[in-house]
């Protein structure tokens, strides 16, 4: 068996393989559900209603998708420029830490100043965190996959230290938990009485902005050029190093916003379980979206729906919610294969 490149793929060629990938994902999940003793149709039905079946479920899904949109965007921006940022998890926590530092009463500003300040500080924190590995990459050629990934562990331990020490809530009965944000630092709900907070809107706006940056601005053009062929970009006079650093700032900033949105919109305080791996899941989201910023929104909703739906499904029929992780992983693998099939034709010898 061999792969033969296709010069000009037809529309069907571009659409059918990804569809098949999604179908294959559900097939795998169905088999696993049967092994676990569930009826696959019932399981999928429950996942679907669990994710979208009620107003509460739908809002829960949108809330869960919010941090994934941010981290997915962070990854998509970086990967486009071939900056392999695996450290969105740490950047998210950096944003959260800054939000907590500014938002727990140290500053007494009105909400219309407080929120932008916290968001900006969170972005700056995430950006700074990625700037280090980016500088190491551009100056010394240190592989950013290694540095950003290992930094996740370092930074998580640092957060743990903060929560046991300087940021520990004195009223927290000994739990490693920060004080609660003052009301001025809390993202309000979009509609009073419903759980959905403005972080979701901010995520959508961010996706739109990233899309505009990619397609309409000079920086977007430069980032794409550097990502596709750094040698040609450098030859043509595009300041490659500076573009990589700018990309790092944007990517880290977006991941930092995820931390701000989670603390300020959802949790109200910082704990060590603020993110169950949003930084890593963001990689899956970005890949499923083919690094397209608007695709990130769709992919994040898909991923969030599976997680939220699987949770409620497992409560109902006892099929473990781990099935969500498997669905996610197989979706990614099948999608990578599907993307290959949109560009190549398989020839049998």
């Amino acid at each position, binding site marked *: 068996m*061999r792969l*033969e490149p*296709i*010069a*000009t793929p037809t529309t069907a060629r571009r659409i059918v393989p990804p569809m098949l990938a999604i179908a294959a994902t559900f097939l795998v999940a169905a088999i696993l559900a049967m092994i676990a003793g569930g009826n696959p149709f019932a399981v999928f039905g429950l996942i679907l209603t669990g994710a979208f079946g009620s107003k509460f479920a739908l809002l829960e899904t949108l809330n869960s998708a919010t941090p994934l949109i941010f981290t997915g965007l962070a990854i998509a921006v970086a990967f486009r420029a071939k900056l392999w940022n695996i450290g969105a998890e740490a950047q998210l926590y950096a944003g959260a830490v800054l939000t907590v530092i500014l938002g727990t009463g140290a500053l007494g500003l009105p909400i219309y100043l407080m929120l932008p300040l916290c968001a900006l500080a969170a972005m700056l924190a995430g950006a700074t965190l990625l700037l280090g590995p980016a500088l190491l990459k551009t100056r010394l050629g240190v592989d950013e996959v290694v540095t950003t990934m290992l930094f996740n562990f370092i930074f998580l331990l640092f957060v743990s230290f903060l929560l046991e020490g300087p940021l520990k809530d004195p009223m927290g009965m000994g739990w490693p938990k920060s004080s609660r944000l003052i009301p001025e630092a809390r993202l309000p709900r979009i509609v009073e009485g419903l759980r959905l907070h403005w972080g979701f809107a901010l995520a959508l706006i961010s996706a739109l902005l990233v899309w505009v940056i990619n397609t*309409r*601005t*000079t*920086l*977007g*053009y430069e980032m*794409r*050029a550097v990502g*596709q*062929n750094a*040698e*040609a*970009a*450098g*030859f*043509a*006079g*595009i*300041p490659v190093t500076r573009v990589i650093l700018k990309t790092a700032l944007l990517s880290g900033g977006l991941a930092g916003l995820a931390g701000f949105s989670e603390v300020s919109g959802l949790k109200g305080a910082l704990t060590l379980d603020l993110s169950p791996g949003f930084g890593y899941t963001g990689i899956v989201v970005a890949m499923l979206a083919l690094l397209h910023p608007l695709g990130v929104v769709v992919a994040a909703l898909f991923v969030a729906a599976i997680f939220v739906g699987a949770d409620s499904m497992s409560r109902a029929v006892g099929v473990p919610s781990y099935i969500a992780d498997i669905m996610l992983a197989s979706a990614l693998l099948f999608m990578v294969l599907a993307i290959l099939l949109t560009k190549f034709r398989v*020839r049998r*010898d």
Partner: protein
Amino acid sequence: MNTNTEAQVVLRLQGITKCFGPVTANEDVSFDLHRGEVIALLGENGAGKTTLMNILFGQYTADAGAVELFGQPLPSGAPRAALDAGVGMVHQHFTLADNLTVWENIVLGVDHLSALSLKPRLVKARIRTLSEQFHLKVDPDAKVGRLTVGERQRVEILKALYRDAKILILDEPTAVLTPQEAEALFATLREAIATGLSVIFISHKLHEVMAISHRVLVLRHGKLVAERATDATNREELAALMVGSEVTAPSIETRAPGPALLKLSKVSTPDHGAAPGLKLLDLTLAAGQITGLAGVSGNGQAALSNLLSGLISPTTGEMELAGSPVKTWSARSAIAKGIARIPEDRHKTGTIADFDLTENAILETYASRFSRRGWMDWARARAFTKELIQTYDVRCPGPDIRIRLLSGGNMQKLILGRVLEEAPQIILANQPVRGLDIGAVNYVHGELAKARDRGAAVLLISEDLDEIMQLSDVIHVISEGRLSPGFARGSMKPSELGAWMAGHGFDAEAPDAA
């Protein structure tokens, strides 16, 4: 050895047809190759030569038709089968692993690199024997990533020879050799032919085709339009057959030098791995002249080209641009100072394959001409690209297709347009016609001559001595980073320049780049 007096057919292609979507790359192509025969495959870019060879080599599957090797049908689309049957192919774009050494690359695919039975010493000894026999000088232990284009080509040829190829397919093999080296290659190819090797030779250099081949096949628009015994044809006829009409190379008469636009005095740059830097180099580029830089690949051309491209700055010595000194600069400032750069590798350095024509056309000027306050002006960029396509005769469906779908010639025309639209004072053309067909070659040369005639200083770097001698008003030879004096057009014979290229004639005390 086989004592057949009747030359046996080693390869037979029958009715090969291959389409890529709506494009027919090959249509009903049939021919035989005999034992000990060299056939030349001639054709413009996009005529279907490479596709045909890729089908023969099993990299593509033909839509119709059959290939027969040594009387046996060849299963289609199986490179392994072609390799095992003794077909060796030297691609125009090399297929070597940069991070491996020469000998590792050569055995790759024959043996597992970690196989216990692999004896590196024996392998290297055999490579050394082959490389001596075929005058393909290369160090078996060198990392391929550090080799020059010319050396990589030698590795590719060695790779095929190492595998005991009975049929050798050479895609533009001499593009990076000196006349002497090419001559040596031909001499050994002739010997190899005498022992039964058969060769398919793809080239656009008609004198080589005339010198080495027995038969010439001409491809046009994917069809075999003519077949001639080499004895019974001539260059003019072949050129006409190839493009379908008479062609004339631009005639270029010598010009007197104008004022010096760029002056290098005692400039040195550091060595870069195996590639030497410049050694106390003096060079003046005068307005209204084409200065030719001849030399064997990997003798400092890259360093000089990088220096003038703004990618590196001189470590010592002085560089003067239109009378004012330049200490350090960048690609962007070189462009801003009016230097047009045509890079050696248009696929890797000159263009971004998956960008469309518009995005490629504005690669150098997007910041100054096609964006305002950080916003791209795509409408203007697209209009500009349409104009370039018109003016420079880039044959393509439109400005929105990815540039990887263009032929080399059309890609080069776009690059040419991109830099010449800026009316540059200094033009650096590094191997501007490498791998192009005659039509495109004449076009590029004509544009360079036009630029010279309006007063630009052109530096033409080429490993093709014919090209240098045809175009240049002044010729310098570069060897191990040192530069020969300038020779006026017609004052030197190719063999004399060849001696300089081999390193003779430079000062005895000149630094040695060992």
